């Protein structure tokens, strides 16, 4: 276990990765972190500051963080070198930056590095510590080994991560190259931690889950397979969100604040994983024709189809999360952050468009529940005004579906069992086709988007197709219901309300009216905790993760008015 943790700490590549771990680690040890890591240059050499009890004595620790090994060049570098930071702490921070409540406590200036100390620099380091030590001020350094010990005896100590949970954790990490299994163990671990949680230990559980996810992520990164952490991070975030609800419902309190911070950390980690997945793994291949499809390395078209829609949904959701973060930053007037986010959003938008352009399989959905991924992509693209592209995509999809069904080649089906999907379509006879297309959320959703995009021809084709070939199909839309808050984050069990007998006619009037009416009448969407907190991507994530369609509430405002031929305004983001 220690080796696993040590390796993990050594593999933290960026300073901000160490930044993310250490506060949780110290908090879990009972320390008070009063200066949290922030982006940009250090505050007079200090990355983080905390007050904690060591050997029975309360002390203030001022941390300078350095990811990986500490080398001679990094020690001496100017002006961002480690020595320069220590000088700054001594000369600038100490004189007047210590908060008053900690004044008079012994101060430890601590250099934290994830890896090892290079031999060549050890003498310099020890000499520096010795020369600058004085009464009430000492120096210390924590290397990866020490941090691993702290994790073992702190956040992940025996009574917080019992033997069984440790075994699950180890298996999850060890099997990171087999994502299905790894995620299954991780899911078990999370379930166990939550099930065995002591009263009021939500924050602690959230932190431990975050730390475990961190370890999983870093190990996965080392083995160059980010699949397990991506799925695990969605799972962790959704479970923790659900877990947090009773505490978040309180009006104020330290535990509430700590939990919000813990959730923030988890969101940060998820977004880090999602960005890695989207920007580093997927999007570089998206520009090349068929590259993503070919990279699935399967001779079965169904494998490629499913994987690519799944990936499309992830990339789109990443872009939508970035839009969400951007909204927050704009509200806080953080211009430079907004600029960076804009770049990321652009990359996601272009990436989604490239994926669709270069992987035509994304125009031929084969599972009805792929409408979730399709809607995510549409919301992202529509949100940035890529309507021309969307129009083409919707139109091509409608054409391909109709052709696929009528030629009995490939068309969306309700099946979810892999064996059924692998054989689909296994027959051209009517009973089979009826069974495969017994119900659909995809068609009414596509029809809605055809209306939003004013694609009258696509709408006409689709409505004709539904009238002539899909009379048997139960066209429907899904909305959250009273029981959705309980289920949607953590389970794929049926919940919410299904709006049945959706009429898709060429003018779309009835469709628009019904959707509008339900969105007005059904308050459950607004009452979802994530919506109440304004974290709408969390609902999207829950839908994506648990394979629910996105509720029409996300795009109802973009629908044209029932009697107007023209399209609508903006989607609800």
């Amino acid at each position, binding site marked *: 276990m220690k080796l696993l943790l040590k390796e993990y700490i050594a593999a933290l590549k960026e300073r901000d990765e160490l930044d993310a771990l250490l506060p949780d680690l110290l908090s879990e040890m009972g320390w008070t972190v009063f200066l949290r890591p922030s982006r940009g240059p250090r505050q007079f050499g200090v990355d983080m500051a905390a007050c904690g009890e060591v050997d029975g004595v309360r002390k203030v620790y001022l941390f300078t963080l350095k990811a990986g090994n500490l080398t001679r060049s990094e020690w001496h570098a100017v002006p961002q070198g480690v020595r320069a930071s220590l000088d700054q702490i001594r000369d600038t921070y100490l004189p007047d930056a210590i908060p008053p409540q900690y004044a008079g406590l012994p101060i430890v200036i601590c250099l934290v590095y994830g890896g090892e100390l290079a031999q060549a620099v050890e003498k310099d380091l020890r000499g520096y510590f010795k020369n600058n030590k004085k009464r009430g001020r000492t120096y210390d350094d924590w290397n990866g080994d020490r941090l691993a010990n702290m994790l073992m005896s702190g956040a992940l100590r025996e009574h917080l991560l019992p033997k069984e949970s440790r075994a699950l954790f180890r298996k999850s990490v060890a099997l990171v*190259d*087999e*994502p*299905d*299994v790894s995620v299954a163990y991780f899911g078990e671990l999370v379930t166990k931690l939550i099930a065995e949680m002591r009263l009021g230990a939500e924050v602690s559980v959230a932190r431990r889950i975050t730390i475990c996810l961190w370890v999983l992520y870093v190990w996965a990164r080392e083995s*160059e*397979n*980010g*699949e397990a952490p*991506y799925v695990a991070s969605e799972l962790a975030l959704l479970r923790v969100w659900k877990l947090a609800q009773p505490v978040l419902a309180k009006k104020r309190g330290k535990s509430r604040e700590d939990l919000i911070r813990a959730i923030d950390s988890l969101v940060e980690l998820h977004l880090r994983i999602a960005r890695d*997945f989207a920007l580093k*793994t*997927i999007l570089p*291949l998206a520009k*090349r*024709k*068929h*590259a*993503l*499809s*070919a*990279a*699935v*390395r*399967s*001779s*079965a*078209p*169904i*494998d*490629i189809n*499913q*994987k690519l829609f799944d*990936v499309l949904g992830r990339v789109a959701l990443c872009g939508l999360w970035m839009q969400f973060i951007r909204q927050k930053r704009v509200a806080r007037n953080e211009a430079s952050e907004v600029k960076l986010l804009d770049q990321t959003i652009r990359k996601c938008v272009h990436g989604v468009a490239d994926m669709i352009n270069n*992987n*035509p*399989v994304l*125009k*031929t959905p084969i599972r009805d529940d792929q409408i979730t991924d399709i809607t995510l992509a549409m919301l992202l693209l529509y949100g940035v005004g890529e309507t021309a592209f969307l129009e083409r995509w919707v139109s091509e999809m409608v054409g*391909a579906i109709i*052709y*696929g069904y009528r*030629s009995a*080649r*490939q068309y969306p089906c309700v099946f979810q069992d*892999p*064996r059924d999907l*692998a*054989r689909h379509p296994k027959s051209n006879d009517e009973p089979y086709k009826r069974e495969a297309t017994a119900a659909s959320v995809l068609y009414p959703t596509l029809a809605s988007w055809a209306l939003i995009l004013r694609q009258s021809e696509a709408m006409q084709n689709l409505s004709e197709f539904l009238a002539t070939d899909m009379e048997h199909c139960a066209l429907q839309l899904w909305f959250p219901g009273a029981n959705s808050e309980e289920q949607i984050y953590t389970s794929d069990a049926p919940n919410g309300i299904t709006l049945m007998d959706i009429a898709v006619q060429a003018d779309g009037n009835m469709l628009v009216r019904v959707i509008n009416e339900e969105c007005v009448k059904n308050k459950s969407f607004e009452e979802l905790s994530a919506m109440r907190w304004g974290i709408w991507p969390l609902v999207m994530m829950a839908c994506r993760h648990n394979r629910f369609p996105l509720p029409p509430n996300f795009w109802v405002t973009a629908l044209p008015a029932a009697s107007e031929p023209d399209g609508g305004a903006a989607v609800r983001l």
Partner: protein
Amino acid sequence: MTPEEATAVQTEVSEAINAGQLIERLVAHAWGQMGSARYNAAADAAAALHNGGEVDLLALFRNYLAAPTVEQGTLFGGIFFRRTMPKLHSNANDMLQTIAAFSARPPGEKAYFPDQGFPAWCQAESSRPLACLELMKTEPEKFERLLIYVFHAGAIIDAPHFLREAIELARSGEMTLKRPAMAALGEMDLRADPTLQDRAIEELRFQIAISMDDAMTAVAFLGLLEIAKRTGDLTAIKASMIIVPPKAGPDTQVAMAQALWRLAKAADSEFIATILSALRPLGASNQLVLDQLDEGLSVLLSEDSLPAVAKFLESVVEHPAFPADLKSFDSLVHKLTTERPDLFGLLLVRALLTGSIPWRLEVAKLVRGIGDHIDEFDIDFKKMSMTDADTAFVCRKAIGHLPLAPVACASILISALRALSGEAAAHVAELLLDPLLINYPGTLQEYVKKRQGKESKPVAKHLEYALAVLQIYLKGLRAAGEVPELRASDQYRKIQQELQREDAAATWKAARAQSIFMSIIKSSMVLHSHQTAYYQEARDGSLVRHESGMTSHGVSIETPRLDVVDPLGLNYRLMLYRLERRPS
């Protein structure tokens, strides 16, 4: 044969006569044992004995043939009849009664009909045809088959008389005599007297015009056919084609189909087109017609006749009531695909350009990969005087119809590139790249590289472009490398493997069940090796060891890439190409 040997044979024949076994020994058994020289001598000896009055050979035969069962060999003694019969002295009645005895044998015995000897016997004496004719008129049913020989021989002796007789009988209304008389009009060689020849033709045309009976029409038509064959003049038979088709029943249709190969030397493309056009409405309703046509078309196939042949085949394939496939034309297909691939190329282009969907699909079946015949074309598009738009259209059609025959398809595109320039050539080069090379970067890339070195500079440049862009595409795919995140889940992979195994097992089982080979041999399962041995006891009681090794047999095919990464898209595109209309 030495005189001594001839004498020995004569003695042998005399002994056979004395023993009352002449027929059995001479006809039934002797041929295989005596050798042709001795057999001929024996036949001559028997004829001499007959002519010498020592034996009545014809009476012997009649008696022999009157028995309920006879030696089958007797009925096949063709050589004997051919050699002996013309030499026999006999009156018409004896001869005709003897031949009638053959005809009276049950049909199942397939008695050899001595028609090779009878015409010669008829001609040997000038009175015989007339005598025979008179006798035949009294018992027409009995001698119907011989009438034509009598006329044939009679025409040599007294053409005007026998022509008159034939016309008279043809008009007599007595069906038994009418049919052979009409056939005789065609059989009589009247080239020496054009007036008589014209008279015969006129009569046959008249008979065709008035006939309400299919068999009669067929006989009359065949009569014209025989005359045309002898004279090389198709005028009369062509003229008859105006009146024949509307009332052509099965017999006449077969006769018309026969005309193709029987008049192969004289037939011009107009005649072929006329015959095919007349037979087009039939479709595959008459297998005999198809067989005759297959024979005829395979003989007559040429660049000139190709349009008519193609048009006819297309009509047969897409016949609304009696569609046929090209399997019915195996001789023609064999000729096209093995001896005249140039014509097959033209046929294919023509089908792709103007053919109906069933016809295009049928022709495509002859291409290797779709069917099993031909895999590379060298088509001279320039010679076909097609517009650039049509040529490009043919290329798209080729892709639509031959997606599983990449080399054949690429060879058509490369042929087209030789005739194209500018935008049209660039378009075809793009098609060569996508979907062909992108789908088949293995075998096809090798083929295109090979062609690149052999083509003219402008064509090679297009091929170079397609290959270069393919490299960029493949580089893009390779750049993806191993992306574990994109791997399908293990569960899915396992299920796929399982299903593939199930499919392969089912295919293997079905193949074994249908294998003729497997039905005639005993199969044993070998568990742990690839070599087997067994012992067999030799005649001397010793054990002989036999060892056999097993080798594996297999074939590999390249799956179109897009069939995996974009199956519906590929299918849709091919469908569009297949359904695309010819540019106006």
